[in-house]
């Protein structure tokens, strides 16, 4: 079966971000970018399915600026066979991203599409669910285990109280949680080989999707700063302060 895996270029998760002084957005100039950590897990899962002989082909797809090609090349170096870049310099909100991916799903007809559960920049946790809705497919969100069994997909999901297992009728959409797997690192020879793998570029216009959104970002502010507190010298002093100063005990 064919597996489609969606990846996103985001700010590296270790970077401490800064809000622009004019409060229009977060400052992304000269900031290290990387593949969203949840997308790395999605790629890893797709590649493992290929190594098990379950998947015959892994196609990586991204929606984003020209520079997002880097993340597609990373996915190719990790084991994806080919890549599709839906290129746009415009900011793309979840719904438009899902519509673009739905077009790609329509063209490619993968049995399984894997995405990360959320991107660490917008923290939306929406695209996979929206893609499932637009393609009329079942969704296995926040997956910590995925098992293909004929035309059924068993997905163990991380839910608030523990774990839930659902059976989905393929074709299906899955979004990854942290504990689905441990992503591998790309090896240098694979990075070199990835440069030769096919990478197809499309535009939203070609796919017939508008990237306009009903959402307008009015402002971006830094969060309220906490006042740094004091260090206490002993447990007794700590308990005393919690009782008499903070009054939380």
């Amino acid at each position, binding site marked *: 079966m064919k597996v489609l895996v969606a990846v996103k270029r985001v*700010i590296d998760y270790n970077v*401490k*971000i800064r*809000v622009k002084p004019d409060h229009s957005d977060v400052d992304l100039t000269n900031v290290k970018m990387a593949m969203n950590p949840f997308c790395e897990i999605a790629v890893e899962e797709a590649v493992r399915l290929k190594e098990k002989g379950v998947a015959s082909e892994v196609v990586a797809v991204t929606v984003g600026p020209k520079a997002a090609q880097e993340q597609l090349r990373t996915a190719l170096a990790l084991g994806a066979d080919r890549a599709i870049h839906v290129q746009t310099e415009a900011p793309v909100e*979840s*719904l438009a991203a899902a519509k673009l991916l739905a077009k790609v799903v329509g063209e490619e007809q993968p049995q399984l599409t894997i995405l990360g559960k*959320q991107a660490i*920049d917008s*923290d*939306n*946790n929406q695209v996979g*669910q*929206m893609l*499932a*809705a637009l393609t009329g497919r*079942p*969704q296995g*969100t*926040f997956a*910590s285990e995925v098992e293909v069994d004929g035309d059924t997909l*068993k997905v163990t*999901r*991380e*839910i*608030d*109280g*523990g*774990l*839930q*297992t*659902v*059976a*989905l*009728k393929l074709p*299906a959409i899955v979004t990854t949680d*942290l*504990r689905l797997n441990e992503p591998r690192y790309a090896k240098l020879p694979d990075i070199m080989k990835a440069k030769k793998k096919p990478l197809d570029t499309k535009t939203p216009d070609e796919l017939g999707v508008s990237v306009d959104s*009903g*959402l*307008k*970002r*009015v*402002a*971006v*502010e*830094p*969060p309220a700063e*906490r006042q*740094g*507190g*004091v260090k*206490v010298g002993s*447990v*007794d002093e*700590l*308990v005393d*302060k919690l009782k008499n100063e*903070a009054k*939380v*005990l």
Partner: protein
Amino acid sequence: MSILVLAEHHDGHLAGSTASVVAAARQIVDSSGGDIDLLLAGEDVGAIAEQAARLDGVARVRVADHAVYAHQLAEPLADLLVALADDYSHVLASSSTIGKNVLPRLAALKDVAQLSDVLDVVSADTFKRPIYAGNAIATVQSSDALKVITVRTTAFDAVGENNSAPVEAVATVADNALSTFVGEELAQSERPELGGAQVVISGGRGMGNGENFQLLDGIADKLGAAIGASRAAVDAGFVSNDMQVGQTGKIVAPELYIAVGISGAIQHLAGMKDSKVIVAINKDDEAPIFQVADYGLVGDLFQILPELEQAL
């Protein structure tokens, strides 16, 4: 301009988070008028409907009671919401794993955007939400006819329970040929639920192993606290992942948060930095957690924890 709130329930009880979602809905209604309806979907949820009807500000409780809604799978629940959504200007749910699973599916089916994890209502169409692990707060305006919103429940004080709203049945039965429930493994705990606890004590990688988490038990018992964990502690296999506090785990904002052996990575702070009082216990006095802690104690947690248990 009426609002539909998706009620959340577990094991025959209304989840505490629902009262906070209704509080957010009331703030929208305050600026725009309209009624708040609660949708309760599930199987054999009659007793829960009575609980839901008591929530202040609720005009009516709409109950969809059918086997197809048991386990609140996304596919049938989203279809049910689609069938009801035309009567409403806003659909709200808690940003729990259920809300996050179902609402984006509804939004896409209605061809509208979704606002995730809203923590402040500016007006009926403008909301604040955290981005970049809470390191920036975005004010977002929606021009869509239907606003689909998940609510960060720690940011809204739960409404009271002095109401007696009418309860009526919803006849819509979704057809679900796509997904089936297989089973679940729920963590059993006598302790308060992490998201709603007044006191939370969390352990990190510094705990060393899973057994050492028992050092937190006595303190948690004395304080009536829930026990949480950092991602590092979960990834190391010390404790189960439903205990994870942070950007990708649970967001908590208790009166008192005690972080033990937790360095304070950006992703962890995202889940607890709105706590009223933060205490950090860590042997590294350079650990970033001390920058947000109201009270810091530098030292070996294996000595400090038993002492603390004694002193309480």
